[in-house]
């Protein structure tokens, strides 16, 4: 069985212009990148465009990647993806015909979990849709920080690198974002997991 090549080796070869090596990185991280774009933009088609733009930008800029002391290639890539999403939002704001609102159906953004009962699935999808709407109501910087922390599972240090912000700013953005989401989720308390429904 072949040992997977580590990120640093693939990055080094990509920096020499080897497209095949870069595409291995693409396949390794495309779910992370697309998922981030989807959570930030709430629109599958726009997320697809932003993810593709992000990978193109990453290949063009890979020579500038120096590796991180605390965060690695994934944080660097997610930073580029966040920038691509921001550009996509600006582009759509500048051209209202491309606006994200109303142009795409409110599709469920989740995959069915194995062994899940139909009513559980419905409830989970409702919660996911409500969370997505709540996320969309956050300011972009808070939304990005919360998604990177709670959906992508990045550390505070990685988020600081991915968003080019200080640790204090990251902590504050996550706290404010979660606090705002908490208030919105309480409006749909019945959708929360069982132990939390009883919070009074």
């Amino acid at each position: 069985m072949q040992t997977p090549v580590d990120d640093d080796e693939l990055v080094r070869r990509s920096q020499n212009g080897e497209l095949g090596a870069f595409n291995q990185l693409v396949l390794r991280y495309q779910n992370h990148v697309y998922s981030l774009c989807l959570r930030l933009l709430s629109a599958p088609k726009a997320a697809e465009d932003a993810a593709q733009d992000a990978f193109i930008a990453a290949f063009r800029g890979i020579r500038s990647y120096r590796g991180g002391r605390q965060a690695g290639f994934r944080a660097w890539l997610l930073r580029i993806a966040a920038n691509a999403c921001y550009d996509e939002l600006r582009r759509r704001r500048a051209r209202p015909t491309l606006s994200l609102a109303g142009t795409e159906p409110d599709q469920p953004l989740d995959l069915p979990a194995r062994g899940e009962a139909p009513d559980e699935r419905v409830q989970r999808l409702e919660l996911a849709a409500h969370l997505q709407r709540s996320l969309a109501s956050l300011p972009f910087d808070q939304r990005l920080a919360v998604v990177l922390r709670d959906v992508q599972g990045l550390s505070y240090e990685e988020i600081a690198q991915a968003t080019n912000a200080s640790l204090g700013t990251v902590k504050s953005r996550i706290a404010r974002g979660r606090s705002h989401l908490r208030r919105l989720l309480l409006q749909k308390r019945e959708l929360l997991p069982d132990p939390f429904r009883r919070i009074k």
Partner: protein
Amino acid sequence: MFGRHRGFSHQLSAYIDGRLSDREGRALEEHLATCLSCQRELQELRATVEALRSLPLAEAPRSFALRPEQIAPRPSRWPAPSLGALAIPMRLAAASLAVALAVLVLVDVGDWGGDGALTPGTPAAERATAPSQAQDQGQAAQAPSPSAEGADMPQETQPKMAPTPEARLAPGQEGGGLHPLRAAEIGLAVVLGTLILVSGAVVVHNRRAIRVVIPPKGR
């Protein structure tokens, strides 16, 4: 009291992530033991984080692997090879201009700075020899001379050495127009600045034209 409670409330998110210092954590826990409002907020925040973490990583609807045509250098109004060829001559020209400008500035500083301010039209070489001429003339005055006025000769040369205030050049008092030396300096500086900007643009353009190695088929 309310301010202190608010401070603790703001720390709850970091507390969930274990991002408080030991001292901050202990203080918050002491507060939580007695504050029902913060206890409830902490529970709700935990529920929020739990709900967010339950969102699965979305699967990419297709492969985003790049094709060579997607990463081809972007079309430019100026073709890259000709710009690349221009880079070295432009750097040489910029270096030459910088040297010329430095020489001009040095000459200018020598002319107008300090007590040695001379009339604008005095050539530099002539000015450089002026003091030694005066000295020579002074020495000549000590030697036997057919004229007794020889002793006054240094004084006669003084007006050349220390011009009247009208003759002394000050910025903006150059007698109706830009001095040729200053004009040359400004001109050179403008050309040099433009050249540096264009050279910078060429360097950026060339770096973007990344060399792409396409893997052989079947790899």
